[in-house]
């Protein structure tokens, strides 16, 4: 291997790092969400992803982010479910919001967390957490929502506006 060749290899490596920095990774910041086949909430799920999961962003459209999962599936996730720009910390001093978004993930599990809830519940037996758990357990399926919208001519099924 001659020297110029080695140098251009090095240059290529530096460029690769640069491209890697530009590639955005998004991180799930809610308890759990789905990577959906289409950019809508009642589209079928390709994968269920938990808080902290990271996905490669490959595009976006109307508040939806197109992502690639670790096992190579491509689908859509809503922007309200993720923290963005993990690698764009270069923009840190320019944009505090970007930083806050990254912090969201660094702070996962800190602060007002399950431990604080447990301590609070021990002090306040009268507070009705059982009813909240029941409220949370009630789930609406994507199919039921689609049916509700379709029958009510709402959303994409809407007619005359």
């Amino acid at each position: 291997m001659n020297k110029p060749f080695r140098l251009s290899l090095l240059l290529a490596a530096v460029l690769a790092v640069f491209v890697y920095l530009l590639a955005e990774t998004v991180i799930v910041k809610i308890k759990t969400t789905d990577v959906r086949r289409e950019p809508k909430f009642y589209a079928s799920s390709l994968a269920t992803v938990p808080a902290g999961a990271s996905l490669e962003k490959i595009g976006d459209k109307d508040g939806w982010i197109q992502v690639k999962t670790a096992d190579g599936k491509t689908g859509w996730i809503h922007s309200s479910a993720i923290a963005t720009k993990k690698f764009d910390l270069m923009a840190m001093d320019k944009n505090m919001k970007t930083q806050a978004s990254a912090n969201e993930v660094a702070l996962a599990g800190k602060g007002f967390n399950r431990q604080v809830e447990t301590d609070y519940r021990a002090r306040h037996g009268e507070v009705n957490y059982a009813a909240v758990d029941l409220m949370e357990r009630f789930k609406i399926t994507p199919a039921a929502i689609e049916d509700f919208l379709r029958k009510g001519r709402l959303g994409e099924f809407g007619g005359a506006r």
Partner: protein
Amino acid sequence: MNARRRAITGLVIFAASAFLPSCSVVQKGADVLAGQGKISEKDRTAIVATSQALRSTFADITDEEEYYIGRAVAAIILSRYKASNDEGLGRYVNLLGTAVAYNSDRPETYGGYHFLVLDSEEVNAMAAPGGYVFVTAGLVRRCRDEEMLASVLAHEIGHVVAKHGLQSIKKSRLVDAFKVMGSEAARRLSSDDVSKLTGLFEGALGDILGTLVERGYDRKYEFEADGLAVKFAARTGYNPNGLPDFLKTMEKDKPAGPAAGWFKTHPGPEDRLRLVQAQIAGLKQVPATLEIRSVRFDQAVKGLR
């Protein structure tokens, strides 16, 4: 070294020096965020401590923390009110609310949106942070069609989206909480710290409930939630006139005596009506009320009639 080689070397050095410092910072952040554990405990601690130190306002509360605050607020509301046991109505309100939430500016929250009818004749609606939305049977009974109920739920979703509940936490309390949390970066919280944090958590819940149940939000927050309600309802496909229609029923029935529930915690319907109607007049397209929706609304609320 010939000129060509020198040029390439120069370029490489330039490129490397331009990106290397940020690479190291970025890589540290990346490793922590990705949870790969490639960085030292010391670095991790430094990053978390910096993040905590930067937190100062309600906007810095994470979605996960909002969830735990919201759960507690909801649990307190549910120790004061009984949930309705009308399953059909409960399901209908969840479908309706979820449809509107999906068309809001913040469709996904840490624990998701949940809707519940409270078994109370009082006319009231409340939303706890993170998406726990409550409407009383008395309020549902006052609605004449799906558009009206959709608008009321959209107003409450507006409070969640704009984080009005979190904004009612006293600033000094938040600053104190972030200070205690900052020490968590260096070590595990001591039982004394957890106890301190729980005390601040209790205080924050008191701030939120005082606003939700006793004092009501600042007028500007109510107007903002109305604006969001019109936007979200219309985006879902509902006639946004459901909100002014609902406000008109409230105007008519304003109690002469001491106010309770909605009347106590909301500004006069007249001012709200004026602003909402002006906003609707400015919409490019106003979806029409559909009979088909009114029919299913009547079916869903028949247990209350």
